[in-house]
Every structure is written in structure tokens, then in C-alpha cells.
């Protein structure tokens, strides 16, 4: 018997209509842990370079984390891996909710989908019984509607469903996979699911998930719960409201959005409205939010309440993900009330909350600039909010201009031409970023933006504060109970960091310190993504309950494998390096490792070069950002080096 994990994957070939239950190799668990790590290994082994996102050969892997569904609070993430139609690299997308634990209760660690079905189908996993079922009657239904329809059809309210909406069916490059109150949104995995003719995966499980050292494991879980309570009672002083506590940013609970609305950009990531947040807005938004919010809700086995059930009068009820409430609002220069209304549609259609509003705002900018004309938008209303409602319908159906905007800002700009490329100013590696434009270069963020394989800052940052507290005394106070640091030097980095002067951005943190800080944050995310832990209790917030000191104990007690801090650090390095290797194989190089040109007003090319060089060196990459044979050997990834040698990747760059 295997512990922590199940030890079996489900292999589904939609072209042949075959379903197989396949035992996995425990040696892969030792090396890659699970979740993203083992997904990446499968992608390396079975998806050759040059594989198109929309092809039979592309795999779509729904992987649960190693500790998903065990008693560990908040461990419920599904990591979805495939080739992205938008970035043409590995899509790195994840979702919380209830799906991953349910899959493990059904007796599988992963569902690996290959091939394409000619007719729309859905997969029904009911413990040992797995069927590919006709989904013709679900065609065109929203993601939430689909889930409800399947539960009714199969007569079990406890079935967990991951589904696509119209955007996925029509292969919108930023279509999401929706599931309960969560979604895997980034990189267009919903479009790949649609291309495969797979409307949904429904799961019901009634089996056990076992752990190797039960008493020890439960002690660890109880300690985590205690610390969560402690953090709930002790928000971090001096930080903006939205950053004080645990969980993903508490957008559904907290009304105070001063930080987001005045620091982030509106429109197509263009305008900062420093004076936006007023008492009147706060009162109005409070009323809006409290009127539509029925209940704060959680994911599987998690005491945080990061999501909410939203019932806007006259619209079907839906469940809201954290930040979507503001992305549409801000892209459209709209009101919060509009944000809640359009998010209902976006959830049913299955759209990424970052890329969709930016693509729409981008289209409207091109109209304003005369690059697109009124004829491109027949019948579009005049008001901004009305225009967004108009565009969302066009995009998910790929009608007219919607067909172009459905490819995201990068590809749309190239299809439109005529100077439109300049308006695609907020993408990294063809992928829309947070709408954020700042003044002074921040060396830590420069590295994370440039090099992160997730291509999405919120999924890379965390742990280390985004800014120094104003006084040295306040920073000294902050580090006092900061036991999560992997090394004492991080406390010094933070205490010495000043808001202004010599010891401030861009030259402090120093190049070396910046690399260390990024390395730590990145490692924690890679560990979370292998274990299936929600970043909201680990790598994302300040002072989280899971950290590098208790994680090895968790893994050991759950699986029975030997594990210590060094070995876990190494496994995270291995997974990080393998993700880089996959993207290198898809053609990614140093030239791609850069933030949007206008992300910071003040840029420092020499310093940026030093930062990138030092980061590559620390990571064991050569100056093109390619993992070296030596580094790969140390990580037992010699097979990667061999392929790179054979294909001439080292010699041709």
C-alpha cells in the first residue's frame, strides 16, 4: 500500500475511447513528490517538443498533490498541466476547491487525458467505475450549469465536477476550467479541454486516503490549525488590510480595497487613480458587496473563507474567486456592482479573470486609437460597462472582433497589426499580467517577473514582504517571531531594507540578497504545487503555518519516505529546473525572461543584467537560461542534459 498518495493514475485516450488504471513508480514520488513535479515528468517523457496545444498528442493532466485529501488543512489543489495555446509553453495552472481530494478518495492521483473526441463528452469517475459519457446535452451550458446538470443526472449532490463553459468549447486562449468555487484559469487550459471535446470531469470517491505515521501526522495537522487561529487573532501590524492575514487575499470578506484600487492600474493597465478610494466609495462598495454576498465559503478541509457565494438580484447564483471582483471593474473603469455582474457571466463562460478583462480593454483602446473602427464593433453600446458585456459575448463565441480578442492581447495585436502591437504592453511571454505599473525598479520583483515559469507574479511572490516597513524598529519587531525563514540571513535582509536612500530599491536588496529571496519564495511555491497545498496557507501570505521547517515532517509522516529540509529543498530545485527544461525545449531563452517594458518607469539595464546573470548562476543555468549538464546531473536529471546535448540546444543556444 502507498501512503499519502494513492499510487494509481487514470489514463484516458479520447481518440480511442480507452480508459486504463495505471500503477505509478514510487521512485518518481521520491524525486518529484507529486502534483506539478510528477506532472512535469510525464510532460517531459510524453509530450515531444513542437507539440501543438490543439493536437491529439498534447496531454491534459489533472494532477493532485502528494498530500491532497490527507488531514493537512488546506491541502486540496489540483495542478493542471498541458501545452498552452497562448504561451506555447507549459501551462502552469491550478485550482483549489474539492476536486483533488475527491479524485484521491476515488482511488487516483491523476487523470491524464490524451487524444480528441469527435463528439462532446464528459468523464464520469465513480470509484472503480469510469465511463466516457455523451455530453451533447451539455453543449453551450455554463460551467456551473454543467456541474449542476451532471449532479442531477447522476443523482448525487456530492459529485465534484471540473467543467468548461462556452469559452473552453470555442477554444478561447484564456478559457478556464471551473470547479465549485475555484478555477484553473491561467494559460488557456480550458481551451485545450475544449479542443479535446471534453466538457467536464465528474468525480465521486468513497475510499480511504492513508498516512504512514498517523499519530505524528495528526500532531502536525493540529499544530497548523493552532497557528492558523493564532494568526487570525494576530494580524500583522503595519501592513495593508489585505496583506495582514492568511488565505488568498480576502477580497470577499474585506471591503477596504484602497490598496488595490489606488496602486493597480485601470483600463488596459494604463491609469493609476491615486485618489479613487474615498469614504463615499467605501460606503457604496460595502453596500454592494454585502448585498450580493450570501456566504463566505471554503475549499476542502480549510478553515479560511476566501471565497463567497454571490447572488446578484436577477442573475443566477455563482461562487466568486478572490480578485475577479476587481479585474473587470478596473479594466472597464466601472463600479463594483458591474464587477459582480460580469463576473457571473465570466464564471459560467469559463474565462481567466486577468486575461479576459485586459483583452477587452485592449480592444477598446484600439478603437479609441483608430486602429480598429466602429465597423469592427457592430451594435456595440456606448457606455463602458455595456461594451464589456458586448465584448464578452463576442469573445466566448469567437464572433467578429471577438474571434481576434479571444487569442489574448499578444496574438490579437499581431493579427490586427497596423501598430496594435504597441498596445500589447502588459504581457510576459505572451501572457497578460497583473495591471500594475510602478516607478522604481524592485530587484526582487524584476527577477520573479522575468524568470517565473508560472508567468504570473501572484503565483511566485509571497513570504518576504513586498515593501519595507517605514522604520527600522517596525522591521525589527516584524522579524521577531518570523520563524518561517529558512535562514537567519533573511531577517537581516529585511531589517536593513529602507524605503528610501542607499539601502533601498533598486540597489538594495543587493544582487545576492535578491537572488536568495527569490530562491526562497520560488522554492516554497514549488513545494506547495507538488504537495497540493494552497499557497494561501503557505507560500503566498506573510508568516504562514506551513514552511520549510515543518514540511519535511509532513511528507515523512504522510508517506513514510525519508525526508529532511535539504532533501526537500533539492526536490523543489529539481521540479523548478525540470519546468525550466520543459520550457527551454519549447524554445524559451534568455530574451524571453523579461518584464513588460513599462512595468517600471526607472529601469537599470546594467543592474538588471547582473541580477539575471547571478540568478541563472544560482540556479545552475547557463547565460541563456538553460540548465547546465552539471546542474542537471546534481539533480538526477541527466536525461534532460542528454536530450539537450543530442538536440544541440547547448551549442545553438
Amino acid at each position, binding site marked *: 500500500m502507498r501512503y499519502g498518495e494513492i499510487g494509481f493514475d487514470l489514463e484516458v485516450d479520447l481518440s480511442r475511447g480507452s480508459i486504463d488504471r495505471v500503477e505509478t513508480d514510487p521512485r518518481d514520488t521520491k524525486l518529484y513528490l507529486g502534483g506539478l513535479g510528477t506532472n512535469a515528468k510525464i510532460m517531459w517523457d510524453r509530450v515531444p517538443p513542437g507539440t501543438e496545444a490543439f493536437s491529439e498528442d498534447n496531454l491534459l493532466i489533472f494532477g493532485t498533490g502528494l498530500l491532497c*485529501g*490527507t*488531514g493537512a*488543512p488546506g491541502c486540496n489543489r489540483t495542478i493542471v498541466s498541458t501545452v498552452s495555446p497562448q504561451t506555447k509553453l507549459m501551462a502552469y495552472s491550478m485550482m483549489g476547491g*474539492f476536486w483533488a481530494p475527491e479524485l484521491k*478518495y476515488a482511488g487516483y492521483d491523476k487523470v491524464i487525458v490524451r487524444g480528441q473526441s469527435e463528439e462532446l463528452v464528459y468523464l464520469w469517475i465513480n470509484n472503480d467505475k469510469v465511463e466516457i459519457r455523451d455530453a451533447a446535452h451539455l453543449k453551450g451550458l455554463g460551467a*456551473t450549469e454543467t456541474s*449542476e446538470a451532471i449532479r442531477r443526472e447522476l443523482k448525487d*449532490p*456530492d459529485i465534484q465536477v471540473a467543467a468548461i463553459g462556452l469559452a473552453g468549447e470555442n477554444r478561447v486562449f484564456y478559457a478556464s476550467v471551473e470547479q*465549485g*468555487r475555484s478555477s484553473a484559469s491561467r494559460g488557456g487550459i480550458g481551451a485545450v479541454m475544449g479542443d479535446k471535446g471534453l466538457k467536464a470531469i465528474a468525480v465521486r*470517491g*468513497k*475510499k*480511504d*486516503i*492513508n*498516512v504512514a505515521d*498517523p*499519530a505524528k*501526522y*495528526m500532531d502536525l495537522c493540529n499544530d497548523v*490549525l493552532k497557528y*492558523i*487561529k493564532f494568526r*487570525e487573532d494576530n494580524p500583522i501590524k503595519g501592513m495593508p488590510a489585505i496583506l495582514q492575514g492568511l488565505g488568498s487575499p480576502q477580497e470577499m470578506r474585506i471591503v477596504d480595497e484602497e490598496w488595490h484600487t489606488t496602486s493597480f492600474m485601470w483600463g488596459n493597465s494604463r491609469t493609476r487613480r491615486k485618489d479613487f478610494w474615498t469614504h463615499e466609495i467605501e460606503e457604496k462598495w460595502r453596500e454592494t458587496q454585502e448585498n450580493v454576498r*450570501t*456566504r*463566505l*465559503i*471554503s*475549499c*476542502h*478541509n*480549510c*478553515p479560511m*473563507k476566501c471565497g463567497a*457565494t454571490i*447572488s446578484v438580484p436577477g442573475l*443566477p*447564483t*455563482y*461562487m466568486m474567486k478572490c480578485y475577479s471582483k476587481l479585474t473587470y471593474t478596473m479594466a472597464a473603469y466601472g463600479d463594483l456592482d458591474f464587477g459582480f455582474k460580469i463576473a457571473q457571466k465570466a464564471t459560467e463562460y469559463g474565462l481567466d479573470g486577468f486575461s479576459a478583462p485586459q483583452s477587452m480593454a485592449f480592444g477598446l483602446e484600439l478603437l479609441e486609437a483608430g486602429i480598429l473602427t466602429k465597423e469592427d464593433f457592430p451594435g456595440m453600446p456606448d457606455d463602458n460597462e455595456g461594451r464589456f458585456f458586448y465584448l464578452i459575448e463576442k469573445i466566448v463565441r469567437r464572433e467578429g472582433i471577438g474571434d481576434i480578442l479571444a487569442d489574448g492581447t499578444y496574438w490579437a495585436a499581431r493579427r490586427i497589426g497596423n501598430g496594435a502591437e504597441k498596445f500589447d504592453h502588459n504581457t510576459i511571454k505572451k501572457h497578460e499580467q497583473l495591471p500594475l505599473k510602478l516607478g522604481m525598479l524592485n530587484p526582487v520583483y524584476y527577477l520573479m517577473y522575468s524568470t517565473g515559469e508560472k508567468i504570473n507574479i501572484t503565483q511566485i511572490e509571497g513570504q518576504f514582504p513586498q515593501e519595507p516597513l517605514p522604520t527600522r524598529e517596525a522591521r525589527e519587531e516584524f522579524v521577531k517571531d518570523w520563524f518561517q525563514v529558512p535562514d537567519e540571513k533573511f531577517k537581516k535582509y529585511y531589517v536593513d531594507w529602507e524605503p528610501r536612500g542607499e539601502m533601498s530599491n533598486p540597489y538594495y536588496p543587493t544582487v545576492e540578497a535578491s537572488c536568495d529571496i527569490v530562491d526562497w519564495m520560488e522554492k516554497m511555491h514549488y513545494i506547495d504545487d507538488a504537495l497540493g497545498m494552497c499557497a494561501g496557507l503557505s507560500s503566498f501570505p506573510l508568516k504562514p503555518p506551513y514552511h520549510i521547517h515543518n514540511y519535511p515532517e509532513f511528507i515523512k509522516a504522510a508517506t513514510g519516505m525519508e525526508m529532511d529540509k535539504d532533501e526537500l529543498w533539492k526536490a523543489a530545485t529539481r521540479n523548478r529546473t525540470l519546468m525550466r527544461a520543459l520550457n527551454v525545449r519549447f524554445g524559451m531563452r534568455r530574451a524571453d525572461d523579461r518584464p513588460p517594458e513599462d512595468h517600471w518607469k526607472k529601469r537599470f539595464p546594467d543592474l538588471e543584467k547582473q541580477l539575471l546573470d547571478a540568478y541563472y548562476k544560482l540556479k545552475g543555468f547557463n547565460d541563456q537560461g538553460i540548465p547546465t549538464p552539471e546542474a542537471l546531473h546534481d539533480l538526477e536529471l541527466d536525461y534532460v542534459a542528454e536530450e539537450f546535448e543530442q538536440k544541440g540546444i547547448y551549442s545553438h543556444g
Partner: protein
Amino acid sequence: MAKVKKIVKSITIDADKCNGCKACEVICSSWHATPRYSSNNPARSRIRIVRSPLRDIYLPVYAGEYTAAECTGRDKYILDGKEYAECDFCRASCPSRDLFKEPDSGLPLKCDMCEDTPALDKPKCVEWCLADALIYVEREEEVEEDQPELGDVEIGIGSMIDKYGLEKVLDTIARMAKP
């Protein structure tokens, strides 16, 4: 029979506070696993959440008595505009549904308030519900003397007798008991 005073343990359910996370199901099935905490499986849990997020229904229910026959109750209740089935509130392990039954054997499950030596402060589900939807309550009641609580094995054998008849169960046990 004489009346005696006894501490009755119960859980008050504040359904408005439930956020549907299922931590109660995870910890209950984990506590009752053999060896303790060695596995978890909500299907074996003695507390379950009747959950319908889009209708805003979150109703934790903990397992009560086993009953051999289903009742006739099929009424609907509308509370705060939300429709519940009578069954949603029922704590019985009964033939009309597969709630509160071991998934492998079909044997009934009943909440035992996590009885242990030494006694816990409160049942595990209450401890793990940080949303405070589950509130542990002890009250003193006068009950009939000599009514020992049935244990898992007795409840299980009782349900087998209901299903197969006493004679067949006795025969089977006698046959199995032979060396």
C-alpha cells in the same frame, strides 16, 4: 425501572456559520480509523454536511440511531426561502439513503461523541470546526437505568439481524467461530 441522572452529550448545529469545508468529515473518519488517524474518508464519517452551495444550503448532520425500516417522512421545509427535504435534518442511518453507512459493508455508523479514555474535552469535529458551526453541549437528564449505549459491534450485528434474520446470523457466527 429507576430513573438516574446522566450527562447527555450533544452538538448544536449553527448552520449559518458552516462554510462547507468538510473538515468535520475528514477528522471524524480519521479519528475512527483503525489504527486511529491512519486514514480518512468522508464516506465513513459520522457527521456529514448536506451541501448545496448554489442554494446556500450547508447543513451538518451527525449520525444518530440505526433504523431497520424507512419512515414515511417526505415533507419539505422552507426556511429563509430555501427548501430542505425532511431527510436533510434526519440523523438516522436508514435504508432509504446511503448516509451513515460503512461504504464497504453497508453497516450503520453512529456518532459516539469520540468516546475515549481519558475523555476528550469535546468531539473532534467540534474541535476542528474553526467556523464555530458545531457547538458541543452537555446537559444533565434523567434517564431510565440500565440502558447501556450500544457499541459499534452491537449496532452492526443488529442491522445484520434485521437484514438476514437472527437464525441465519447465529448460524453464520457459530460456523465462523469453529476452529
